[in-house]
């Protein structure tokens, strides 16, 4: 068991023939992910990385039975790519693209409402089920199969957590990088809920950042419905208010979205909060003892 992606996931790559798409599709194929083709408008009918290229997502779905899409389309066209994948009935859309204008995401999110597609990202490292399937840009070898699920807003912090879990002998089931933008498809709470319901996942690492209220909502949900231990960390305890710290969503707006405020709520909801990012693996080992 695992969540979102597994060895049977049939993946297409939107922006397949571009530099990023080519590089990461190659890495995904090497990891063992079932990449069944790709989409680049205008290059339909050709072949790339020994796989068919289509003009539209719906053609790709009809021809390959794809149920997962990963998007490497440039920012100005990425929201359109998300809507196209949704329209074609893709179940899981993973958008890696960074720098999509916020108003474009307002439209895309509205387009998806009531439809059957789930969006992960944008501006995220993707999703990986350790040892089975990688739909993203993370270094595959640090995700050792095991029993802990990861939910994270940040890419490199996800790698950090996976690495510490591996060194602690625990390993990972599925890691979900939800992305650091102001508007994202799958929230912290939704990702935590998926992992809570996964029989193979015994515990969850939840990594957040300053800005927004998603971690607080997830914490409240965990308090009411949680059945597994959660170790949590919020990056940005030293970030000054009002400054954007790299991610478009990482900006302290008010008293409620500081790292300290979020950590306090998480602690009150029974989450094992660590103050230092160096303690994630050690804390999880202690909790699962």
């Amino acid at each position, binding site marked *: 068991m695992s969540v979102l992606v597994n060895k049977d996931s049939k993946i297409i790559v939107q922006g397949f023939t571009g530099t990023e798409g080519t*590089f990461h599709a190659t890495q995904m194929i090497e990891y063992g992910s079932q990449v069944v083709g790709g989409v680049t408008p205008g290059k339909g009918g050709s072949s790339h990385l020994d796989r068919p290229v289509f003009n539209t997502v719906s053609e790709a779905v009809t021809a390959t039975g794809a149920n997962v899409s990963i998007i490497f389309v440039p920012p100005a066209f990425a929201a359109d790519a998300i809507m196209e994948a949704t329209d074609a009935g893709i179940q899981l859309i993973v958008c890696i693209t960074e720098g999509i204008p*916020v108003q474009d995401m307002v439209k895309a999110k509205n387009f998806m409402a009531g439809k059957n597609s789930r969006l992960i990202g944008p501006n995220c490292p993707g999703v990986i089920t350790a040892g089975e399937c990688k739909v993203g840009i993370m270094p595959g070898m640090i995700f050792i199969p095991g029993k802990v699920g990861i939910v994270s807003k940040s890419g490199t912090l996800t790698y950090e957590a996976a690495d510490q879990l591996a060194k602690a002998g625990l390993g990972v089931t599925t890691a979900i990088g939800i992305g650091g933008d102001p508007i994202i498809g799958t929230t912290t709470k939704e990702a935590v809920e998926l992992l809570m319901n996964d029989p193979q996942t015994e515990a969850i690492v939840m990594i957040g950042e300053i800005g927004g209220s998603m971690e607080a909502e997830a914490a409240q949900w965990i308090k009411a419905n949680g059945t597994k231990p959660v170790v949590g960390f919020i*990056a940005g305890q030293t970030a*000054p208010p009002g400054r954007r710290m790299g*991610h478009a969503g990482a900006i302290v707006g008010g008293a409620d979205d500081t790292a300290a405020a979020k950590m306090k709520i998480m602690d009150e909801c029974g989450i094992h909060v660590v103050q230092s990012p160096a303690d994630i693996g050690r804390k999880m080992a202690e909790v699962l003892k």
Partner: protein
Amino acid sequence: MNLHEYQAKELLKKYNVPVQEGIACNTPGEAEEAYRQIHTQYSSKFAVVKAQIHAGGRGKGKIRGTEQRGVAVGKNAEAVKEIAQNILGGTLVTIQTGEAGKVVNKVLVAQDVYYEGPNPIKEFYLSILLDRAKGQNVIMYSTEGGMDIEEVAHNTPEKIFKEWVHPGGLLQGFQARKIAFNLGLSGEAFKNCVKFVTNLYNAYVGLDCAMLEINPLFKTSDEKIIAVDCKMNIDDNALTRHADVASLRDISEEDPTEVEAGKYNLNFVKLDGNVGCMVNGAGLAMATMDMIKLSGGEPANFLDVGGSANAQTVEAGFRIILKDPKVKAILINIFGGIVRCDRVAQGVIDAYKNMGNIEVPIIVRLQGTNAAEAKQLIDESGLKVQSAIMLSEAADLVNKAVTAA
């Protein structure tokens, strides 16, 4: 990207949003001439001289070393010239600029809109921004204009109204009317307000604003609705499709070090501490800053080198961090994924040798792809660089460096 008041008002006019008219001036002479024009064109008795900086609180702020406020009324050409003389080139210190203040390079000489007439004047507040939780734009407004809105929200939250706009369309007529009614308007002012709000929302979407604030939103004594002040922030990610707006960027308002970092695609924010850091990824960068603090130091900066940490970017990063004499140590924290650690290590060594005179201790923590090879490269380089693989080891090294310094 932030815009100046005078720039934002020009953009609003393109969307038929009425504003307090004015002329941007670089010299006292221009200000004097601007007064004459405004006096004739708008039969404005007075003129308001407004310092143009990227910060609020200008009306209460003062030019350093003087009693001159950042916004002042001039009753004739000579007075306007004198005020402009006092403000231009001075450093305006407001509650938002902090002690450092901001140098004023331009003033806006604007018409007087507080003239007498048949009805009382009124000041309101209105802003448009993204509600992240709902994924919708929200119009936030209040009858309490002209003052600090955070104070209003805190003391009298019932006086703040919110109107969410459906993401599938623009602001609907009933919503614009609701806003005008809630502001207590009727007759001509009501009609003008409905038009104002509708056009303002179109400007917000059309210009890809991240935030648009009108404070005060003003009702004149003859029932016009106009924007007296405007704070506009444009979504950086959308600037590629607004070349005209992008060209309005005023680099003199930004931290010069941050501007330089931008040239190397480094995402840099200056902070006040003693330990510099260079990290790949925004989340890990923030987490590294937190770890520096827990180790007894204070982060001197946020620096995300992104996915392309090589000799050139590392060297640029070193130079930028070392401009700050308070920096007593530098921590490089790279989690190599697609980026190979041995390449980053070579980059650090090359940059170190190129610069030749780095005197603060450097701690390098490289983890991930080829981490062991990277550590070996650093350890055998003969440079005064300490290496670590685990994050906890790096934390201990920072602690030692801070204690020794």
